[in-house]
């Protein structure tokens, strides 16, 4: 009996250009994969893909929606890139987003019947602090009790969602709201200014863009960024160089949590305008895909957030025009991640096939 023996070897030098090019390959493969799925569902794949990827952004409103959804994705992914670059696996951005929204929303509700220019900044700061505190929980447990940050940060997502649930049903529910699980509407001073009349795109996009530039500066031009880079490549070297490992873990989690918290505030003070149960279509989880698709590079993340945002919009149009469930959006996001990881694997490893005869082993 002849069997194929598969051998996997590490490639020594991967060209940087190819490293930044593979995300495009992953996107193309995702589109092809999507076409195949549409075909098996009985649709004309070209037509369906057009509905999915072209129709949503063929008018100004659609384009504004693209930016609207890219705004939180980009901001969260920027925060996550600090964690991921330094080998800290914060999977709980969704929870930090939710808790940031709770704190920010709490501030907004405090001022529900007041107007003033200072209200919105207070809400944003509240959101950032909320996200930061929530991200500090896995960070402190990791540094001082050796827990696994993947599990803790992930589990805390559900904790924050339940807290939100409790608040909007109980103490914070709108007294005039006929027991709907939602809070009062925020006052106008507590809302993100809209950029254009009739479009939903709001000033939160400037926070995301500012985060891109600040993070680029911190990651590539400061001592903190240098320490993050070294720790991500080799923890042994970071220890040898005497970097304060524990402090750094706390800092990257705080940055990440603050970004996610502000993204949550952007949602509730932007398109939503109040707190209710469904403040985020899993932006916190999807941003993980965005961070990796963007190669943890601030400018790559802008591009990746637009691509992934399009899968949300495409899913909505596909539901309307093709009567297929909105969850296809998650299928596309999953495919992007799958193809990205697969092409990375082939980028970093080569696979060799060898023949060997299994029968000989038996004697």
């Amino acid at each position, binding site marked *: 009996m002849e069997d194929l023996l598969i051998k996997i070897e590490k490639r020594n030098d991967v060209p940087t250009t190819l490293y930044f090019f593979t995300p495009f390959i992953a996107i193309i493969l995702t589109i092809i994969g999507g076409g195949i799925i549409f075909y098996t569902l009985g649709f004309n794949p070209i037509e369906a893909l057009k509905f999915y990827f072209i129709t949503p952004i063929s008018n100004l409103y659609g384009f504004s929606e693209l930016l609207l959804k890219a705004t939180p994705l980009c901001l969260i992914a920027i925060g996550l890139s600090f964690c991921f670059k330094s080998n800290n696996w914060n999977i709980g951005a969704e929870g930090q987003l939710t808790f940031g929204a709770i704190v920010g929303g709490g501030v907004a509700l405090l001022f529900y019947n007041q107007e003033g220019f200072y209200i919105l900044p207070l809400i944003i700061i509240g959101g950032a602090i909320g996200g930061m505190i929530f991200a500090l929980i896995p960070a402190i447990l990791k540094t001082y009790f050796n827990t696994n940050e993947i599990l803790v940060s992930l589990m805390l997502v559900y904790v924050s969602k339940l807290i939100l649930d409790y608040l909007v049903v109980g103490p914070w529910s709108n007294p005039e709201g006929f027991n709907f699980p939602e809070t009062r509407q925020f006052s106008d001073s507590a809302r993100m200014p809209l950029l254009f009349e009739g479009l939903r795109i709001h000033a939160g996009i400037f926070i995301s863009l500012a985060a891109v530039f600040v993070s680029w500066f911190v990651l590539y031009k*400061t*001592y903190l960024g240098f320490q993050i*880079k*070294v720790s991500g490549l080799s923890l042994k*070297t970071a220890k040898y*160089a005497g970097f*304060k490992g524990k402090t750094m873990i706390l800092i990257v989690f705080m940055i990440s949590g603050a970004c996610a918290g502000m993204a949550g505030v952007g949602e509730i003070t932007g398109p939503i305008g109040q707190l209710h149960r469904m403040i985020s279509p899993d932006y916190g989880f999807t941003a993980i895909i965005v961070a990796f698709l963007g190669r943890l590079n601030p400018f790559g993340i802008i591009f990746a957030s637009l691509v992934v945002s399009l899968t949300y919009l495409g899913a909505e149009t596909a539901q309307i025009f093709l009567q297929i469930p909105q969850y296809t959006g998650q299928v596309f996001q999953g495919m992007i991640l799958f193809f990205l990881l697969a092409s990375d694997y082939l980028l970093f490893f080569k696979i060799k096939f060898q023949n060997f005869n299994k029968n000989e082993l038996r*004697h």
Partner: protein
Amino acid sequence: MATDLRISNISKIYPGCIANDNVSLQFKSGKIYALLGENGAGKSTLVKILSGVISPDNGEVFLNEKNLKLSSPLDAKKNKIGMVFQHFNLFETLSVFENLSIDATEDNKSLRVRINEILKKYNFSINLDVPVLNLSAGQKQKVEIIRCLLRSPKVLIMDEPTSVLTEQETEELFISLKKFCDEGILIIYITHKLKEVLSLCDEVAVMRKGKVVSVSQTQNEKVETLASKMVGQKLAKIKKKINTSKNKDEIFKVKHLNFYSDDPFETNLVNLNFSLKKGECLGIAGISGNGQNELFQILSGEIITPNTSIIFRNKEIAKLNPKQRREYLMAFSPEDRISQAAVPELKIYENVALNNFKSSNFFEKGLVNERKIKEHSKKILSDFSVNTDNVELKSQFLSGGNLQKLILGRELITAPELLICYNPTWGLDVGAINYIHETLIKINDEEKSTILISTDTEELLKLSDRIAVIYKGKLSKIMPSVEVTPEKLGILMGGGSID
């Protein structure tokens, strides 16, 4: 049936080093053979060739006069050559039985029967259904041995098997090995521990620098004779001027250094005390794995141990991290230059920035001062004759020698008062070794001190003013290097005692 294993004219050459130089040996079943040698003597290369992990450049292996083609570990298995490596190849979260059944060719029921027979026959007590991670190192090793026995091997190779075992477990292992031997399995025992050779083995082959230097009956050998064969009568050619002046200031003093670890692959350190004068080189000899790693990390501040006192230039620094110790003018060159002292993916100037200290101004107010770092890197490249002037080059493209020059340069350009280095010339070619030795002598001449932890006795005898040997985490008495001979070192390194 008797087994006869013959290795004929095996050679294996790596760039810059001959790992096996025309090695010929013969082994017959019914005896336990020892393969003895220092680190880098070529033992591991030879057993890797026998187990099919690497192929020789030249030479052949014969089993019962049949020429074996060993091009993969599977070939070794087919030919009934079993191998137990120093580091275990077990899945920690799977049970013992699952681990054993992975590469078995029979059904689980008959496999279990056979495993139980083996357990009974050799008096092993191992619960087959617990996860491997719950086993002690000795039990894990038994699982590896059972895996070999299931294939009814003709040859069983044990690579440094006692390095992770307790005394008790070592005794049990020896009893089992003697049993296997009586049953006709040919046993090859790789070690650098002299006492084990004498108590367990019948014949001993000593390797040095890739060559077999002697084959003899152990009954005709003593610890001393084996030690001198293992280390060789290598007298240092260029020896540094010994620093004897007694009235120099003491610069570094370690008291009550203890280290305890739960990890069986780490060595506990037991009450180390030593001190160092200005301009002096203290050599710490020992076979690798006797606590040098842990000692280096404690001296550099990567590991902080409680109740230890380290005085450097009249200040207590035992609680400081490596960066803070650097501010007091200490410098460190670790053994693992490829993945610890430098990051291969980083550019040369980024690797230089790893040794960041206050006066360097590499990072002013938290910002990277790239111009300053690059200037500084250029100076290191030229001062320490690294064969490139491109500071943007990724350090993975430097040869071992040039990388080590870069690292030493980075550490020394700050003019430290004390350099602690661990195997600074490991794996380098002669030219680079000489350059580094000259550099280390030069810093002593400039009244700076060095602690040289090394597994290379020749290097230690050449560079040190005083030498101590570390064995199983304990430090021998510190001897002036004029009184030290290679034989004495060999005995101490193998766990023996002198006078």
